[in-house]
């Protein structure tokens, strides 16, 4: 659970599961991996078997969440380029509806983008999102870089998915072309494989 960094009262707590993001729309440029600056930096998307780098990011203006807080259950990390862009919206809206299926596996879903907390809040409220959006805002994109999911040229994260097992090991990862909603099927399959 997100831990309270400095208590600002019930209202903030209540909003803990609501998130907003503010990343600029990704340019509709090259989607190819080879054109990705993350690769130029030698940062490959972390693959199954790798230890998921821990992080501590703001989930509301007053609260942060660490990956290690969620140890003991599967975690779905959904990096996306930006709040408000049409594809992101559809992808997050879809995950919002699929949440009961994720929860059936005991999994927690976290959305991550470089947008700031206030943007995340507005986005989450507008879309009625029921899962946390994390602000990979300062230093910008640090967590995305650690996962090999950053597009330095555009300054946004890739549309990358990670399923992390209860021990903090990545069990599945996938990087979608940035303009394509990757859907939820891969995540559900990965969670199903984990529960076998």
């Amino acid at each position, binding site marked *: 659970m997100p831990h309270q960094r400095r208590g600002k009262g019930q209202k903030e707590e209540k909003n803990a599961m609501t998130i907003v993001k503010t990343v600029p729309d990704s340019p509709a440029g090259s989607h190819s991996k080879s054109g990705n600056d993350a690769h130029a930096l030698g940062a490959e998307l972390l693959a199954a078997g790798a230890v998921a780098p821990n992080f501590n990011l703001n989930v509301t203006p007053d609260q942060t969440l660490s990956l290690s807080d969620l140890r003991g259950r599967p975690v779905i990390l959904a990096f996306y380029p930006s709040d408000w862009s049409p594809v992101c919206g*559809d*992808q997050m*809206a*879809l995950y*919002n*509806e*699929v949440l009961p*299926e994720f929860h059936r596996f005991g999994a927690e879903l976290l959305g991550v983008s470089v947008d700031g907390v206030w943007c995340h809040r507005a986005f989450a409220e507008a*879309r*009625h*999102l*029921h899962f946390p959006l994390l602000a990979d805002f300062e230093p910008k994109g640090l967590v995305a870089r650690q996962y090999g999911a950053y597009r330095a040229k555009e300054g946004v994260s890739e549309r990358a998915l990670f399923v992390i097992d209860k021990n903090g090991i990545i069990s599945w990862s996938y990087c979608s072309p940035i303009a394509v*909603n*990757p*859907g*939820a*099927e891969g995540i*559900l399959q990965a969670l199903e494989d984990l529960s076998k």
Partner: protein
Amino acid sequence: MATLKVPITSTDHFQGPESADVTMAEYGDYECPHCGRAHPIVKSVQKYFGERLRFVFRNFPLGEMHPHAEAAAETAEFAGAHGKFWEMHDLLFENQDRLGGQLFLGLAQELELSAIALRQALEGGEFKSRVRGDFTGGVRSGVNGTPTFFINGRRHDGSFDFESLVLAIEEAISATKSTAKA
């Protein structure tokens, strides 16, 4: 290539003969404006292919974004349980801008269905599991938004204007025929 993971069975809502050359399935949401736009296009495509096409509709309501979508889907299922799925399906899309409890009950009466029974079904969540079943099957098949079409079980990733759908269906028909010949 995303494919339909839940096979089409007799429990699905379909129009057109089982022996049709091609089956097109739509995952849709009665409150989704794109589905609303697709509705008359699908009708024209059905008219164009006649008995050669079987059309199936499955529910994919995005309830958080579209507050009336779930109840609309359950209303269509209620009508379906009384043999009037397609009549209700059409009326819901034709009245997309006025979706809501009052409209659903009014449409039931228009179709000579019991408004009281519909209200009970909606309140009791009688068709919730059926709608959710459609939804989860859609997610597992790679439905990421609405409308999503599957033509002979393969997801159609092109646009859903009349020409694109006709072309995709014709290709599916010729693929089936060439396989049958081989």
